[in-house]
């Protein structure tokens, strides 16, 4: 190689490395700046006390409860639907117009920004169906939002099941349903678990779609009617506190907690994927 080509190569290689590392540098910068200021603010009082500015209490227990309730309600709706849809797409459907339409619809859903989901949930679930600002409105909206993720991840898991298993089961005289439930699904459990974990991450991180549907009331809902009461999740809390309170201590702590939760979920999902 002549010298000119060699310098050009070298320059481009350096450029590739520099650009690639800049993304990681940004991430690490963000992690350090948020976590270093957030960690000191995290203590037992913060995560076990109520939130009431009049009493000078800025605990985040209601937000932790709200987040958990919303995650649980969303998953209860979306996982069965998503898994059943994936079963249909991989085990039952014949390639054709319907399958193509379903795929396009799923793709489209994943391209819709969360603010649009928020507006839709606001008009449809909150106003038209009269559910008000409630866990139910929020969970229904979010379950549509994470549906593509559940369908796609489960589909991948089902597809990766050795077709020999299916054939063997069918050859033994088992019905298609029996084969699906007893042979294919058990093999796909890790994949479905990954879908669940990724969905949890989406629900935890979501703000725009939650604030317009589940509202932002920082109180632990009463057990009997948690579905109809408004809640505030950690992300919504971070947004509200960062814009409304002058003191950033609570906001930093909440942001740090969010990052840690997401990191743990990501790590767990990765571990599961590796074990498959």
């Amino acid at each position, binding site marked *: *190689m002549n010298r000119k080509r060699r310098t050009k*190569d070298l320059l481009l290689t350096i*450029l*590739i*490395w520099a*650009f*690639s590392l*800049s*993304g*990681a540098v940004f991430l*690490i910068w*963000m992690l350090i700046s*948020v976590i270093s200021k957030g960690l000191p603010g995290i203590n037992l009082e913060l995560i076990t006390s109520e939130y009431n500015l009049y009493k000078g209490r800025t605990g985040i227990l209601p937000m932790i409860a709200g987040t958990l309730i919303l995650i649980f309600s969303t998953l209860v709706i979306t996982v*069965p*639907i998503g898994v*059943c*849809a994936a079963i*249909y*797409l991989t085990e*039952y459907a014949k390639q054709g117009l*319907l399958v193509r339409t379903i795929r*396009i619809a*799923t*793709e489209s859903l994943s391209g*819709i*920004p*969360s*603010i*649009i989901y928020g*507006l*839709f949930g*606001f*008009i449809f679930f909150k106003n038209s169906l009269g559910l008000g600002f409630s866990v139910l409105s929020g969970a229904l909206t979010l379950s*549509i939002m994470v549906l*593509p993720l559940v*369908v796609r991840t489960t589909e991948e898991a089902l597809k990766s099941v050795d077709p020999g298993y299916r054939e063997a089961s069918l050859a033994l*005289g*088992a*019905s298609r*349903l*029996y084969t699906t*439930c007893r042979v294919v699904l058990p093999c796909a459990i890790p994949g479905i678990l990954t879908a669940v974990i990724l969905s949890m*991450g989406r629900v*935890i*991180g*979501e*703000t*725009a779609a939650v604030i317009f549907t589940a509202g932002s009331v920082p109180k632990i809902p009463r057990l009997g009617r948690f579905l109809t009461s408004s809640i505030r999740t950690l*992300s*919504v809390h*971070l*947004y509200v506190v*960062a*814009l409304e309170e002058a003191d*950033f201590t609570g906001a930093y702590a909440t*942001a740090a907690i*969010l990052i840690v939760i997401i*990191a743990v979920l*990501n790590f767990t999902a*990765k571990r599961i994927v590796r074990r498959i």
Partner: protein
Amino acid sequence: MNKKRTNPETPGFEKTMELVFVVSAWVSIISVVLITVYIFAAGLPPIIKIGVSRFIFGTQWKPTAESPQFGIFPMIVASLLGMAGALVTGVPVGLFTAILLSELAPKRMASFLRGCMELMAGIPSVVYGFFGLTVIVPFIRVRLGSTTGNSLLAMIVILSAMILPTIVSISETSLRAVPKEYREGSLALGASRVETIFKVTIPAAKSGIMASVVLGMGRAVGETMAVIMVCGNISRIPRSLLDTVSPMTATIAKDMSYAGPFHQSALFGIGAVLFLFIIILNIVLNVVVQRSAEGNRSINE
């Protein structure tokens, strides 16, 4: 009990479950239709009432004034500028990261970078916004002499970081899909590794990379919570990168909390414009993906 229920001897149950599967699969279709219908049903009437051109090209957004004005042109400009800015930095960085991951990086390095990108994809947008609010905005205010620091520039910085994971993961997948023979052929002809990447691999993965860019555009235009915390939320056409802006998404989310009835429906109008934009992006994406599928087929033939 479970055994009994999935007993192969009961064809009625088989049929019922098959129906359950089909209905579940229909949920996505129904959802897309519902969302489309409801967003436009809520958004189009106010646009028509205000007047399409006065709404889209009006430059004044004064929803609470005595004679309220609803012009969203500055917001459209802000959204587009934010998107363009994010692409200018996000695409080269994302593409080069994808190249490093698929072609050059040693295994350890690649898995570290991939972990970083996955974490970036998972971090909630409010956290990006909060980081922007507490670090980027003050930086711009102090170092670049903007009056508040809330600016188009801050928005672009945050958006570039946020679209990065999307661009990296889709581009990497398409770079990996390029047949090994292409690279080997190029290397055998005497091209260097870097030359092969830029002259052979990238052109072969072009449509996948394009798809990642379109997806990134959708992300950038639709992003709300991160943007709202750094953009300043003053609706005017920016003259410089340091001016405050208010893109469509930020205005909707910011105004919803106090909007009166007509103001609120005007916000749904903005939502409809935004949604239309997303639909167009989706159609473009489908065309690009289709083309890439055809490209792959012609390679295999």
